[in-house]
């Protein structure tokens, strides 16, 4: 009896998952009396590094070097943090976004961090050596494609939300990120660490700040109609 209950539960859960997956779909509609959100992302903790240690293809990949996992501007401003609102069901239209490109150049993923919506991504090899671009959601492979020669290009689909880490099994130190956001309320910080998110329907949300070393930091926010809410975040960890 318990076993069949379990199964019924599993079946029901599957249905609930299906329902939430649909509910998570963002709906575009006109926003009247929206509020704005802005602030600065800072950090003053320990900055870890990773080591690029080319063991082959040295003429293309360059010399061994250490690369910081947090890029800091003046006053501890964090560059390349991705700031976005979670759980927004409907709101402003998506901006025109070009299809994201992950370029393998000099054994570096260019850009190092970028934001995308769910959908297609182009992967390019600008180096005259074999690369393979291996994407992951967490530890799970999202895709893995060979780029055996210069100008090789593959198009893949980013099917789920969240940060996608890319590496290259042929050059193990390579690292890049594509953060797949669920709605158009997002911004990637520049060297000033500032972000600004506009035209948000009034309400309570979760503000997510993603940074490659620190991961995701969540902060509750309340957006008021026609007002600008200022929230600056000092990342911990």
């Amino acid at each position: 009896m318990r076993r069949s209950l379990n199964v019924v539960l599993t079946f029901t859960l599957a249905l609930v998952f299906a329902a939430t997956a649909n509910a998570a779909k963002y709906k575009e509609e006109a926003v009247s009396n929206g509020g704005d959100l802005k602030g600065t992302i800072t950090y003053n903790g320990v900055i870890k590094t990773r080591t690029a240690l080319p063991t082959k293809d040295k003429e293309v990949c360059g010399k061994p070097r250490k690369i910081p996992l947090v890029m800091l501007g003046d006053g501890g401003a964090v560059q390349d943090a991705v700031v976005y609102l979670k759980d927004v069901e409907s709101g402003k239209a998506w901006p025109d976004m070009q299809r994201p490109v992950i370029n393998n150049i000099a054994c570096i993923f260019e850009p190092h961090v970028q934001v995308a919506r769910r959908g297609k991504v182009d992967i390019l090899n600008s180096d005259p050596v074999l690369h393979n671009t291996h994407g992951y959601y967490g530890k799970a492979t999202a895709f893995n494609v060979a780029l055996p020669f210069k100008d090789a290009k593959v198009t893949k689909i980013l099917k789920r939300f969240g940060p996608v880490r890319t590496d290259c099994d042929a050059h193990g130190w390579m690292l890049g990120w594509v953060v797949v956001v669920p709605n158009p309320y997002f911004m990637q910080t520049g060297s000033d660490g500032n972000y600004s998110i506009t035209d948000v329907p009034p309400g309570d949300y979760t503000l997510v700040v993603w940074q490659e070393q620190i991961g995701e930091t969540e902060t509750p926010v309340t957006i008021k109609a026609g007002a600008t809410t200022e929230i600056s975040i000092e990342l911990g960890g």
Partner: protein
Amino acid sequence: MKKLLATASLVVAVGAVSLIALSLQPAGGKAGEVTTGRSLFDYSAATGNIEPASDGIPVTARLLEHGEWVFRGLCIGCHGVEGDGNGAVWELGEQYAGEHQLPRKPRDFTEAVYKLRSTPSGSLPTDADLFRSISRGLVLEQDMPAFKFLPERDRWAVIAYIKSFSDRWEEEAEWQEDPIEIGEPPMPDVAMVDAGEKVYELMQCEQCHGPGGKGDGPSAPGLEDDAGLPIVPRDFTDASQFVGSNEPQGVYQTFTTGLDGTPMPSYADFLDEEQRWQLVWYVISLRPEFDLETARNEMMAMQETKLARLQNQ
């Protein structure tokens, strides 16, 4: 209650280990041992069908319940009650290391990343792909035993149950990519094998698999799978060590769709049909027991078997 569960999973674990041990007995000689005059492809001792006879069974609560029963009876020893690959066989192997350690972490069904797929890299497998993996086993029954002896209903039921561990099946339904069709392999000849060697060089296969295909290329050291465990590129000279099918269609599928969860990427975008079969035959030609005449004879025999099966239907 906890103790009872632990005892139960140990019993299942022991059962699963004996099952693996049983299925490890190949048709002749020890696993991995190369004997001349043996088939280029058939190393398996178990009997049963690998290809499904139907497209599947509609998923009902009753089928799922049956799937859970099959799963708890045969699968949890390695894959764990939660389907996350942390079964007792895996955990005990970790504890004792050495001879009891499984070569790879059992598949984590909560992540739903699968090596053997007819679909492009990053896509979920088809139900028929899962059916073949369960039936054939992986790496000729050393990682995962063959369950082709099970009634088909048991296999479809456990597939439905395995899929209930991950919401990827629901979330990605709208993005699901079509399978890559694999046709009949052409009869190999010298020109085809030679052309395949050029494809092998052009695709830079030797970076991982080495110039002679022994898995000893410059990028081989330090490779890891999704579980963060060391993994070595396939040694093409040992036909008993291929993941999934070591037949021409199996080799074709591996480099075309990639082995998701491992460093092996997809080459779908860079090879046309002709080049793919050239590469297939070059890779197979690296087996020490390979000669063109044997290969052609086996292909002929396979085609006849297939034809006979079609005529019987």
